[in-house]
């Protein structure tokens, strides 16, 4: 029901007191309107005080008609709607949306286009709904929808007018632009409105991360891998000159703690697709006490002291994690990863939902940091094919200057710097400070030292058959190779047909044999051709695959496989594989049996190789190597020796 100003005052007597009206600050009004606004307020206060209009006129200068209009503008209106009140006292303020009162313009009688578009929407049947439907379908990503543009939206507008039999002599056909501009503005307004509506309606489909959580070190550990965005080099010494070889992009794995935002460890996997064992290597690194290192490369500096939490103290390194969050990569679904997390840390393994990186924002931030380092090298592969920072064709022919060691130390220094930088969200503390604080303020769980849980995650078991073939010693077939040992004959004599073998995934030269009831028997060894260097299951599988494909038989498979990679060293992927082999053959984590003289621990010069100066060896055969030609020391020129021997024979 429509209420006049007096009726409104009767219904709401509190409005008679102008102090109850909403306040509009004078600064918010345009300067040229302020005088009129003050005058209107004064007039309204006198009206509310029920002074006669002629007296108000004398005081304010407004004539009675103006006063009456002002009163109606401020107070009259529908009973269900709020009156305009103080807003109505602002001169020329628009209180309601504009509305067209005249009929739409025709060819004969032009009456302007003011508010005509809105009038069209309100009067033409199906026009408003039709346009809204189009935009809704576009926003809903309907498979049959159209990717709308203002132009196409205008075309649809005209089609809908035509369908509604809108006369061709009336607006918008009276305008040159056929109401294109109004249509464009309406399109953008409608789109914004519907988008807002959609975002308000949107409810989370499912809850995938805790809504409220505690705060302590180890509450959530995040891990992810990233292909390092820069090509790097290794150096090969060839006739006393260093030949740089470009290796393909490798993978960096980073572990971080969510609450303290501290980075726990990183690991370089020299392969484009990292495996479960790379993930395990990274996790074990993060849980082991290590000493802080000092960068050797000039120009790379990192803060003194601990760089990662596991360098602070052995107690902190032994803290058991509460939850380990990984993404949906296949390598994370391995049972060995679940074993490590659930048995050694007794923690929760959380693999999350696909395509939801925001739930693990911290680790994605770490990846961004590392990607930034990659972007600083001239050999960067760029973020996309059109990235201007991408390595130029000119440089591609010349291997870049960045070596693996530079990359390694750059990443170490960056993460160390991040761990030692005070952060605002940690109340000005560094992440490492918060880790130290957590130790004293929260009952952090410590991993048990005893029990079987401390077993290395690389130690695996397999059930195999005992083989006895006429004319051959008893053996076990394990990854394409026959393993022999004196114990096997005894086992066969006892009537055993199957045994359990325990092996290190990174070194399968020897296996530990157990009976099915778990009794340790003895060790068995691979043939001497496979004894020279520590090698993992993966290497053996590669070698077997190549032999099978090329239909060849290798005398010394480990060396010949390396030679194969060396022959193709100009290809980045082969160079990368060569580097991986180098790492595997000289893995310091594998404890070599000192009694086995054939195992190499050093290079020709007797020094342990450093990772930056890898493969630095002369291709010329030295006397020393000739002497040990039966079981030579490992070097890049090994295959060369074999060729020489073959030529001599």
């Amino acid at each position, binding site marked *: 029901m429509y209420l006049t100003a007096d009726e409104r005052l009767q219904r709401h007597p509190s409005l008679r007191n102008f102090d109850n009206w909403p306040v509009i600050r004078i600064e918010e009004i345009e300067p040229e309107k302020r005088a009129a606004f003050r005058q209107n307020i004064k007039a309204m206060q006198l009206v509310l005080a029920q002074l006669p209009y002629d007296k108000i006129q004398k005081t304010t200068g407004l004539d009675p008609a103006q006063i009456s209009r002002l009163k109606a503008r401020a107070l009259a209106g529908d009973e269900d709607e709020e009156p305009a009140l103080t807003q109505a006292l602002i001169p020329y303020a628009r209180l309601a949306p504009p509305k067209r009162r005249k009929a739409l313009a025709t060819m004969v009688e032009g009456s302007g286009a003011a508010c005509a578009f809105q009038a069209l929407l309100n009067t033409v049947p199906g026009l408003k709904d039709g346009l809204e439907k189009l935009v809704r379908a576009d926003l809903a990503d309907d498979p049959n929808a159209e990717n709308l543009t203002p132009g196409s939206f205008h075309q649809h507008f005209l089609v809908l007018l035509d369908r509604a039999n809108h006369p061709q002599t009336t607006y918008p056909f009276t305008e040159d632009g056929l109401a294109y501009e109004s249509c464009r503005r309406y399109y953008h307004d409608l789109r914004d409105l519907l988008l807002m509506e959609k975002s308000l309606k949107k409810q989370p489909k499912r*809850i995938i*991360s805790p809504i409220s959580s505690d705060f302590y070190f180890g509450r959530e550990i995040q891990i992810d891998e990233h292909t390092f965005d820069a090509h790097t080099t290794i150096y090969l010494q060839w006739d006393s000159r260093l030949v740089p070889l470009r290796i393909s992009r490798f993978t960096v794995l980073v572990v971080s703690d969510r609450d303290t935002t501290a980075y726990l460890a990183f690991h370089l996997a020299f392969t484009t697709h990292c495996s479960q064992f790379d993930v395990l290597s990274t996790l074990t690194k993060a849980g082991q006490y290590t000493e802080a290192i000092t960068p050797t490369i000039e120009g790379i500096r990192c803060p003194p002291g601990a760089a990662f939490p596991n360098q602070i103290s052995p107690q902190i390194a032994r803290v*058991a994690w509460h939850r380990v969050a990984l993404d949906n990569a296949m390598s994370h679904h391995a049972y060995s990863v679940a074993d490590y*997390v659930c048995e050694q840390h007794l*923690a929760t*393994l*959380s*693999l999350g*939902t696909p395509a939801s990186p925001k739930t693990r924002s911290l680790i994605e931030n770490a990846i961004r940091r590392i990607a930034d380092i990659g972007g600083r090298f001239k050999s960067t592969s760029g973020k996309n094919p059109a990235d201007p920072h991408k390595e130029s064709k000119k440089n591609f022919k010349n291997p870049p200057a960045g070596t693996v060691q530079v990359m390694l130390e750059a990443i170490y220094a960056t993460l160390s710097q991040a761990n030692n930088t005070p952060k605002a969200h940690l109340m000005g503390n560094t992440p490492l400070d918060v880790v130290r604080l957590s130790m004293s303020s*929260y009952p952090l769980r410590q991993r048990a030292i005893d029990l079987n849980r401390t077993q290395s995650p690389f130690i695996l078991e397999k059930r195999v058959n005992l083989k006895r073939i006429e004319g051959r010693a008893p053996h076990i077939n394990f990854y394409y190779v026959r393993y022999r040992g004196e114990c096997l004959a005894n086992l066969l004599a006892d009537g055993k047909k199957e045994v359990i073998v325990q092996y290190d995934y990174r070194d399968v030269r020897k296996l530990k044999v157990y009976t099915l009831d778990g009794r340790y028997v003895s060790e068995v060894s691979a043939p001497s051709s496979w004894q020279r260097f520590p090698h993992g299951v993966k290497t053996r599988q590669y070698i077997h695959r190549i032999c099978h494909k090329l239909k060849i038989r290798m005398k010394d498979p480990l060396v010949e496989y390396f030679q194969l990679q060396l022959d193709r060293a100009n290809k980045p992927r082969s160079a990368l594989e060569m580097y991986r082999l180098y790492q595997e053959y000289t893995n310091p984590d594998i404890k070599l049996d000192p009694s086995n003289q054939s195992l190499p621990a050093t290079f020709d010069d007797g020094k342990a190789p450093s990772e930056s100066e890898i493969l630095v060896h002369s291709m010329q055969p030295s006397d020393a190597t000739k002497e040990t030609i039966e079981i030579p020391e490992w070097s890049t020129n090994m295959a060369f020796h074999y060729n020489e021997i073959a030529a001599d024979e």
Partner: protein
Amino acid sequence: MAEDLGSSLEHAFGRTCEPWFIKGEVAPCLYPCLHLMRKLSTPPVAANLRVPPAPTYCSWPCQLSCQGQQNRRVVVVDPRCLAYLAIGGTRRGLLIRWYPVVADKIPNHPASPAALRKIRIRGGSLRPSPVRTRLGLRRQADYYVQRMVKYHHRCEFHCLAEFYHAALLEGDPTVNYYVPQPFALTVNGTSYVPDIYFVRDGIQHVGELKPRGEFDAALRQPLEAFFTHHGMIFVVIDNAAVFEREIAAQNWIVIIQNLLTLEHLQTQDAEWDIVEELQGSKSLTFGDFIDVGNRAATELKEAAIYRLLHRGRITANLEQEFWGLETEVQLCI
């Protein structure tokens, strides 16, 4: 009286209540029957039986289903198969009787042997043992793995609500055993693995966690009948009810992990020490029992506290506050 009854029936059965139905005299036993019917009634699944949604008097979580209207008779079956109600009408009045379960005599009844035969148990028996999650689901779901205590093996959960629910069962002293993903079934040709099996107060429950507690009725009805047939109760649990107790669930996960870490310790004496200390001072904080600087020295007491909590001998405010050194522990009354 007839009009009152008519409106009650109308309220309970909607359009199936025909005018002839309430003519004549009404048996006095009708009201207790109606009362029972009301207790049974929730929004029905059968198309030809309409009951006003969410009646306030419904206190028993079960469903009514109408199995047909033959010879002017409405048969209402309690899906827990305890009894079924037949309402018949003659020209002289209403006839209402309770019959014991004879499911095979009711056509298309979910508990009839013909219907139950369509539910197959993969793996042979209903002995609860975790069904391994296939890789496709592991990659698609919000997947969690954790070793638990009441089911002392590694458990797989397919969403956070399932994981929290299991953690809350750990803290429930009336539950002494549970198995996540317990059986593999085939219902009408579709593979189905319930979320959890648990034993509460000696009664076997099979639970399914769903957002808003909404579960496909076409699947729910035969499953309810099937598990009732095997002496278990099938319940659909609302995820929201679990997330309401999120802090408690997180606390129980921490307690479980600590229990597992310290499981090798003998804590009988330490437990008595703690009980005596608590008897003396009524309430102490967790920090009063352990030395943060030297955890190894007080690990027996620490393990004892976790074990007493898990057994329900001592209590702490785990519902509102996160577990920590400041958490107060006290003896259960």
